[in-house]
């Protein structure tokens, strides 16, 4: 079971992304209560792509796939410079308070909450893959 859709690189697309995730959860049989974690992962990576891939012009692809009890989330940003989200410095809570500025927690949340978080840059495209076992 998998679904894929492309979204404009704008935070205003988040509402449509949430609807896409909820539709996938309904169709795949996952507990809808678990969808907010998937929405969170997607928002954090999607907003980073919008913010940091300044050269990106195309819509961002989001694919959701059910693999048993695991949901695989893949975001692809086409024709952009490499930026390794999985290894980029994440802002730890202590740093956030010391720096006294908001933001930067997103990658920390994904790394802490996901079971797998990888990055590839192939043929000019940035691809982030996240896995999370649900129902636990």
């Amino acid at each position: 079971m998998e679904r894929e859709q492309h979204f404009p690189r704008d935070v205003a697309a988040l509402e449509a992304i949430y609807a896409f995730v909820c539709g996938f959860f309904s169709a795949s049989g996952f507990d809808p209560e678990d969808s907010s974690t998937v929405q969170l992962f997607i928002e954090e990576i999607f907003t980073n792509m919008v913010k940091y891939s300044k050269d990106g012009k195309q819509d961002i692809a989001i694919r959701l796939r059910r693999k048993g009890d695991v949901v695989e989330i893949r975001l692809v940003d086409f024709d952009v410079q490499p930026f390794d989200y999985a290894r980029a410095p994440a802002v730890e809570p202590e740093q956030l308070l010391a720096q006294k500025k908001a933001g930067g927690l997103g990658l920390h949340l994904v790394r802490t909450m996901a079971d797998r978080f990888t990055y590839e840059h192939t043929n000019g495209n940035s691809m982030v893959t996240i896995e999370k076992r649900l129902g636990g």
Partner: protein
Amino acid sequence: MFDIRTGEGNAIVLSGRLDAAQAAKALQTLDALEHSVVADIAGLDYISSAGIGVLVMTQLRLRACGHAIKLANPQPRVRAVIHYAGLEQLFGIE
């Protein structure tokens, strides 16, 4: 849909989804706070790092003047995100 409004007594009420698209709206109201306040977030269904960020900024600003914002009644999934962010103590969540 996100909403933030003044509640009874010394409280504000947040509800809906506090994400990157709504953070500026939240900050607009939170920036007007000048004293300690309890934020009832029972109706908050979802929060991301962008939402947590505006709450952190508000807390740091208020603390500098001897005040604080305390988060009350978080739903389990909202509390879990704040927990993974390592910020439960900052907001007085017990």
